């Protein structure tokens, strides 16, 4: 069946003088129906699933078939986990997966109105990818970079569409965290900002407007707290378990700061802290030496089964307070 068969009845009506469809107001802000996610690791998978869940068609782009397969498997695995928690059903899964397709060819992004990049937080990599996409995509296409610390302005400068480049900082796990930071680069237009704020709402997120500045809001505030918890541990004030319990029960946090660091990945925490330290230059952002030591030892947290806590194959903490 022709994709635009419906237009036939409108045309027929036009011929019979029945009046035209109200033309869509070019200034009005509408939903995005098709998006591209470039770089489909943990964050990209979460973004893709979240978008598909609200009815958006998602094209995944990865560097090779193998990565693409792993990305799709990752999304399925996440949904399976949610099914086992009664949060979703098999038919939800079918519907979500039916709206997700993959490709290893950047040119498939050409006709899509929105591209979200979720590559690792590496400035050069992001610039290279956006510069490539800039040449391929329709000039109206909006580019979103998902970054927690890098400069949107600098990333945008790699393109000829700086007004239509914006940052969206999703938090992990994307599908369960209801806040998103909408980060304006220096040259991001108001219209781009309004469209992407609308997109965030379309994804069932609460958007927070953020002006570009290292670490934005969430990262800037949570990282020094995590870092401080490591100092408290290093200085022998309390055990890892004690620190986490104190913060969890004292301030109603779902995870203590050390378990949170384990979940984020200690190598990532280290990179973010170094970036804050470098950008802001204040000693309070200096990475704790204990963090450095653990990263060197390869104890990166949940993903290596060992960080401030030890984890079993299901990612549950098995023995507490092991970081000496």
């Amino acid at each position, binding site marked *: *069946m*022709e*994709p*635009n*068969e*419906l*237009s*036939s*009845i*409108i045309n*027929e*009506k036009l011929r*019979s003088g*029945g009046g035209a*469809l*109200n033309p869509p107001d070019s200034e009005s802000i*509408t*939903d995005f*129906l*098709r998006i591209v996610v470039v770089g489909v690791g943990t964050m990209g998978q979460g973004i893709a699933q979240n978008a598909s869940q609200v*009815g958006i*068609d998602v094209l995944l782009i990865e560097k090779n078939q193998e990565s693409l397969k792993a990305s799709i498997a990752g999304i399925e695995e996440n949904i399976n986990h949610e099914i086992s*928690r*009664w*949060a*979703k*059903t098999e038919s939800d899964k079918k519907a979500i997966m039916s*709206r997700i397709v993959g490709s290893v060819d950047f040119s498939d992004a050409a006709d899509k109105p929105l591209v979200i990049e979720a590559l690792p937080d590496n400035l050069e990599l992001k610039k290279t990818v956006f510069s490539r996409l800039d040449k391929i995509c329709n000039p109206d296409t909006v580019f979103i970079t998902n970054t927690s610390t890098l400069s949107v302005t600098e990333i945008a400068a790699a393109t000829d569409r700086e007004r239509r480049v914006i940052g969206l900082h999703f938090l992990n796990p994307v599908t*369960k965290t209801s806040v998103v930071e909408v980060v304006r680069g220096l040259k991001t237009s108001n219209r781009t900002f309004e469209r992407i704020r609308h997109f965030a709402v379309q994804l069932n997120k609460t958007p927070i407007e953020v002006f570009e500045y290292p670490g934005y809001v969430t990262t800037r505030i949570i990282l020094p707290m995590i870092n401080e918890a490591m100092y408290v541990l290093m200085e022998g004030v309390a055990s890892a378990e004690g620190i986490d319990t104190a913060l969890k029960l004292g301030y109603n946090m779902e995870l203590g700061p050390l378990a949170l660091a384990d979940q984020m990945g200690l190598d990532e925490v280290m990179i973010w802290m170094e970036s804050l330290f470098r950008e802001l230059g204040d000693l309070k952002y200096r990475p704790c030496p204990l963090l450095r030591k653990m990263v060197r030892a390869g104890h990166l947290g949940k993903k290596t089964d060992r960080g401030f806590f030890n984890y079993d194959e299901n990612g549950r903490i098995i023995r507490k307070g092991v970081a000496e």
Partner: protein
Amino acid sequence: MKILILNCGSSSIKYQFIETETRIVLAKGSVERIGMKGAILNHQRHDGDKVKLVGEIVDHQVGVEYILSILLSENHGVIKDRLEIEAVGHRVVHGGERFTGSVLINEEVMDGLQECIELAPLHNPHNIKGIRASQRLLPSVPMVGVFDTAFHHTLPDYAFNYGLPYVLYKRYGIRRYGFHGSSHLYVSQRAAVLLEKPIDTVNVITCHLGNGCSMAAVKGGKSVDTTMGFTPVEGLLMGTRCGDLDPAAILHIMGQEGLSLSEANAMLNKHSGMYGISGVSSDMREIIQEAEKGHPRAKLAFDVFCYRVRKYIGAYAAAMGGLDAIVFTGGIGENAPQVRAASLIGLEFLGVVLDPGLNTWSSQSERAIHDQNSKVAVIVIPTNEELVIAIDTDRIISEKKKATS
């Protein structure tokens, strides 16, 4: 009067175009997958002409525009001018306490609908979108809202109050509302006609057993109790909804499994009911098939389902102080003789005696299925919610015309 009936869901619009004097459905159909790739418009004219179109429909307004276009279409349509649509009747899920009957829609009513969103966050916003879209496209055509909850507004306070702190009722409107109102209204009125008795003299129990299931005690034409409550989760066992449950059980489960609110909500609404018990299916046809093959949990799901219906028949006979008729309607109620039979087992003491032959006789029409010695009539009545909405819309518009002429 020619009336367009619209039932707007999150990504779909169902419609019927009804001539209320003759009760002929001139055309009906649906728009599905609104806001997604490959939206579908299915349209059927009363003479059997059918058409299916695929395209892109970004929102409810475009959806309604397409529905109007196909009604006006030279090849598949039934009208020549938009003005032939004399009124639009909208199904609205939740009317709260504010709407006790169908209303002519004006801005004040729209404000009231906005206030009811809190009570039905999954349904009312889409209903409102549909109304707004039709107002824009048919600015001179009167619109009527018909509420799923309205028929149950006659529940006495002792039937609709929960045993919770009263302040919660005042603050958030936490009480029992009931749903499927148009269906319970229609079949209870038909039952009185079939019994050849004035409606204000009969006690009827109506069992709407479909995707969602609810029962109502209709005394003298008024709903005095119903099984669904604040939400459609309460009461009978359903395809994937749990029905009656000790509220402390869900709190306990949430603690044990560390479930979030949305996970617990999905569990009660989508993973429970016949599907949850049987692990096989949420569809009664498959449950019956599997139960007959000896699947123990399918059998259990069937038994729980029918037991709850039976229990509420007893309860509602007591609530009304008498019983003249039991009505079955909805997909299961109309088509599953096994369910009707099992639900009525042991009710001879109430004067309910089923005729096994009539019960298993398959038909699409209204029919009595009780034994001639039964004191209580047992009737199968196919439901017709759209017709109820059309008739109510006609009534409201005609009253308004009379008042202004």
